[in-house]
């Protein structure tokens, strides 16, 4: 059994080409586009892109929130530095699954969203950027419904670099 040199080379070339294509195709599947950030499953990209707070809430939760005095939003009357505004929320509501913060006057209203698994207290403190005087809105998802608290925070020096 013998192959001519030409036949062998052609076959070898075909096999290598085929193998190369398979490798390239599988590599293509492995390399995720940087923008996707595949490690962030469930990252609410669309919600963060919304400009208005109502649209961000809709994109995040698919429904609207009702104001509730059971949501206690802690925010300063006046933020000396819009780049670092301490905001906290706590609630007496039960079965809380999510807490989010929005800043109406920011270019994109949604600032942060937190998943509260069972066993975690419905309480979050964080620091946000505020571009200008505007409302800060805390959203609490509890028992499948949405509740909110709103507070206006005056900003003297904006958090977007003035």
């Amino acid at each position, binding site marked *: 059994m013998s192959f001519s040199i030409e036949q062998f080379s052609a076959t070898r070339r075909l096999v290598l080409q085929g193998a190369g294509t398979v490798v390239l195709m599988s590599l293509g599947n492995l390399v995720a586009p*940087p923008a996707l950030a595949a490690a*962030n499953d469930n990252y609410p990209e669309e919600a963060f892109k919304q400009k208005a707070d109502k649209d961000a809430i809709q994109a995040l939760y698919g429904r609207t929130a009702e104001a509730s005095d059971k949501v206690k939003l802690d925010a300063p009357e006046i933020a000396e530095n819009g780049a670092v*505004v301490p905001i906290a929320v706590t609630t007496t509501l039960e079965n809380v699954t999510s807490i989010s913060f929005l*800043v109406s006057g920011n270019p994109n209203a949604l600032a942060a969203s937190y998943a509260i698994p069972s066993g975690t207290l419905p309480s979050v403190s964080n620091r946000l950027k505020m571009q200008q005087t505007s409302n800060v809105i805390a959203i609490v998802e509890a028992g499948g419904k949405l509740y909110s608290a709103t507070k206006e925070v005056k900003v003297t020096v904006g958090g977007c670099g003035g």
Partner: protein
Amino acid sequence: MASTIRVRAIANGDTTEVQALIQHPMDSGFVKDAQGQLIPAHFIQQLTFEHNGKGVFIADWGPAVAKDPYVKFAFKGAAKGDELKISWVDNKGASDSTRAKIQ
């Protein structure tokens, strides 16, 4: 390499209070540098806290979270000496993680 994550977790009975401070520019993408060029957005997108392999707090962040972000929360079911795992991923695909003992 030192971690970008500094965390303090203190158990008070069944409740553990966690405070974390992370070194990160959290650039919003709206700010211009001295030359008038926009500094590209560079911010942590997801921050996860795990105890015994279970997520106890997951933060989805946008660029409006302040630079060198700080966060505080509390959860039940852990005890002094338990380990907490904290990790983050940012919009450029960079990440960091650390483990801390609950005090």
